């Protein structure tokens, strides 16, 4: 496919990297010529320096022959304009990043008129990811599939963990819970484990199961942390607003701290149920005064990565509550997560690019089973894809033991139309209307038929 990316920020760069690796023809447009130069040097893409919302520049990029235009400049207005112009020039699909909550409502009304196929709000999407983590704090990260009927959980085996030294076949035998460990990251190595696999300390494991079964498993093992009910958020950003909304609607108590009085006032006007405190979030006295020991979760959402890291280090040293930090720079995130300094890390760039990649995969195959959800796990090296099974599938009703799957492909879970969740074995099979989760290290899978040899 021919894809045009307008704006090479953090999200733009992640997209450029992934889409060019997926063998798409990518053209990047940015006003900053140096940045364009650098991108062209580093990735196999074409670059154009100029305003991506202008007719001339888009013509130079030959937009009319493109399949998709993604606008991720810092400005919402430019993104909308870029999509509008591109649509007029004849591009098939457009995706815009739109962050301002004030545009939310009108987007729902006039998405068609604005020429948008999809609008992404990265802050909102990230806030949602955080709220999922807070709902199940035992996990580093939690992704959902098939309307939240199946969950994929990332969990790190720490010291004195009951899972240490456990053989997988014994684990499944003893606990009587339908759960599957679908991937293990040990250092830099990634394993798609079999029954003989033995877990070790500081392995990161990825589990799929239904929400109830997951809870059961963690309770069995005695490592369950119940849903957070008191959450402290530092930094009254847009993301904090979205997160607070989500959490309040789930019945949690939210405390927001920010040093900027104006922002605090705005926040308290918009969120009557949250407690907004004006003060320095890095001041330990203040945090103590606001009862950080009593909190179930601490979320660092200031605009600066470094501050978020320091804040969460402080919080995890001080209490045993769940600590989540927003860290946009990948190198920083690797640093704190690998050493287990912070419980969970989220990044807007990753969340956004995941959504867009999911969209492009679906675009690529309109004919057969479509990609419903895509999540990237293990440092973006493994993909978990949800496919909806349609009647075009070549192996409906065929038991898996009779199929020859490609290497590095695992069928992790099946959600039947009647609500049944199956962790598949050799005798299971797919039916029309099923949702199926595939785990793979092949990062360009877009058709369910391709999993066979």
């Amino acid at each position, binding site marked *: 496919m021919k894809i045009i990316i307008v704006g090479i920020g953090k999200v733009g760069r992640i997209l450029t990297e992934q889409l060019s690796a997926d063998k798409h023809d990518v053209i990047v447009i940015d006003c900053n010529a140096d940045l364009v130069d650098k991108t062209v*040097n580093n990735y196999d893409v074409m670059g154009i320096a100029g305003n991506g919302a202008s007719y001339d520049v888009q013509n130079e990029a030959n937009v009319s022959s493109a399949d998709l235009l993604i606008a991720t400049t810092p400005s919402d207005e430019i993104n909308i304009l870029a999509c509008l112009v591109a649509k007029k020039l004849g591009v098939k699909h457009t995706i815009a990043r739109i962050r301002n909550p004030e545009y939310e409502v009108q987007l729902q009304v006039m998405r068609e008129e604005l020429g948008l196929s999809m609008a992404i709000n990265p802050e909102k999407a990230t806030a949602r990811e955080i709220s999922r983590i807070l709902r199940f704090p035992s996990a580093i990260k939690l992704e959902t599939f098939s309307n939240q009927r199946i969950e994929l959980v990332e969990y790190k085996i720490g010291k004195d963990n009951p899972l240490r030294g456990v053989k997988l076949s014994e684990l499944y035998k003893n606990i009587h819970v339908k759960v599957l460990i679908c991937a293990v990251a040990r250092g830099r190595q990634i394993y798609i484990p079999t029954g003989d696999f033995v877990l070790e300390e500081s392995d990161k494991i990825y589990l799929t199961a239904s929400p109830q079964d997951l809870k059961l498993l963690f309770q069995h093992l005695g490592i369950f942390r119940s849903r957070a009910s008191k959450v402290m958020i530092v930094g009254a950003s847009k993301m904090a607003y979205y997160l607070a909304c989500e959490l309040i609607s789930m019945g949690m108590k939210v405390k927001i701290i920010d040093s900027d009085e104006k922002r605090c006032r705005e926040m308290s006007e918009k969120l009557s149920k949250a407690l907004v405190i004006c003060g320095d979030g890095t001041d330990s006295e203040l945090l103590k005064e606001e009862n950080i020991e009593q909190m179930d979760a601490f979320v660092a959402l200031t605009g600066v990565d470094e501050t978020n890291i320091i804040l969460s280090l402080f919080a995890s040293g001080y209490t045993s509550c769940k600590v989540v930090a927003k860290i946009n720079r990948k190198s920083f995130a690797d640093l704190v997560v690998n050493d287990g300094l912070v419980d969970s890390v989220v990044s807007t760039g990753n969340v956004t690019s995941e959504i867009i990649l999911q969209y492009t995969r679906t675009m690529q195959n309109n004919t057969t089973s479509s990609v419903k959800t895509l999540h990237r796990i293990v440092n973006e090296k493994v993909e978990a894809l949800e496919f909806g099974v349609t009647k075009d599938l070549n192996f409906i009703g065929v038991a898996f033991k009779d199929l020859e799957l490609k290497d590095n492909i695992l069928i992790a879970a099946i959600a039947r139309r009647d609500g049944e969740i199956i962790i598949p074995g050799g005798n299971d099979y797919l039916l029309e209307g099923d949702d199926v989760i595939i785990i793979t290290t092949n990062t360009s899978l877009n058709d369910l038929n391709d999993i066979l040899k």
Partner: protein
Amino acid sequence: MNYKMIGYVLGRILLVEAALMLFPIIIAIIYGETKIISAFVLPIILLLIIGLAIGIKSPNDNSIYAREGLLIVALSWVAMSLFGAVPFFISGAIPNFVDCLFETVSGFTTTGSTILTDVESMPYSLLFWRSFTHWVGGMGVLVFVMAVLPISKGRTMHIMRAEVPGPSVGKLSSKIRTTAKILYSIYLIMTLSEIILLVCGGMPLFDSLIHSFGSAGTGGFSNKSLSVGAYNNAYFEIVIGVFMFLFGINFNLYYFLLLKRFREVFRSEELLTYFGIAIVAVLCIAANITELYGSFVEALRYSFFQVSSVMTTTGFATADFNLWPTFSKVILVILMFFGACAGSTAGGIKTARLVILFKSCIKDLRRMIHPNAVSSIRFEGKTADEKTVRGTHLYLVMYLIIFIVSVALLSLEGKDMITTFTAVATCLNNVGPGLEIVGPMGSFASFSSAGKLLLSFNMLAGRLEIYPMLALCAPALWFKKRKNDDSE
């Protein structure tokens, strides 16, 4: 420094060269030159062994940064030339290996300077190989390899930039592989059409292959001692003259023509300047040599061919311009330095750089009068960024330094001033013939081995636009980092 990756790409290049050497074998079989076949088979075996040894397995870390790009390009060209010289040596056609190397470097760099005094006595297969190197070297060996084999994930832009001539490189499509394929398709189609036109005009097929390769790569090897002048045929001269001129145009413009983006083509400043310089030069020389040839039209015929040949740095000749008046000779020498457009197969400083240099001179002059004036340099309808302008200035300085040092070194040979000067000029600009001893009807045979090696270096520096060859001399690129020292 990723030495494994450099080795891998080099290995690939050597394998491609082995494949290319199959073509002269076919020619040898056709003309029954059975003795020569072994002269090609041996280097092919050698290339296969070395190429397979280092190029078969792609390294785990296949990242290429700017320094790897520079080294890969420089080393590949040196290696190609060394192995390409072997057939001449083994067959005994050129007994001295330095001579063989000079001839091959001259071929790959599309210079066309020769040490042969009697071309007609050479075997057909060797003549073919000599001219075929022009065709391969014209568009770039690595660009060819990139079109055929995927080398590395991203970052191959560094290689392309180091090999394709011109101040800035534009990609024609998102993927470097597609870009390379487009460029080679245009190149191939244009070469084929020239061959067909020449054959239709009655030139023997072999001769038209040789001359088409020569003009496509803007090289200039002919299979006649008198070059194109040997035919004394106006049709051939016009076809070859026009095609030389066409191969001197930026190939991106042909692609734009295919895309029907005419405005960009006909408003291209570089193209218009290129035409302008050519027309002025043709008219000036024609007027100057009218007396020699009797009529203005006749003078125009010779003048056009010589201007087209020298300006595109091809080096074919239809007349011994060594005998022309000084004014004409001076214009031709100036044209040698000018060269043709960036992104073409030609050498020289390139019209694009000239335009930028000229404009920045004007800008600075204006600043003398209005010290506070703010102005920018516009090129091809866009503001040329400071980096490009500075790069162009720097290039000119480097170019002059290499030129001056080379002239000084070559003067130790004790040849006359004009010969020394034009020999370096013609090699550094990849033209072919110079003046006096190295004139269109002369040869480089009389230089010593050291002189030939120096000129070979000049040819490579000229073709690769200096930096890769200089990088080869930079110690920072060679030495591994010391222990306990993380800085490189």
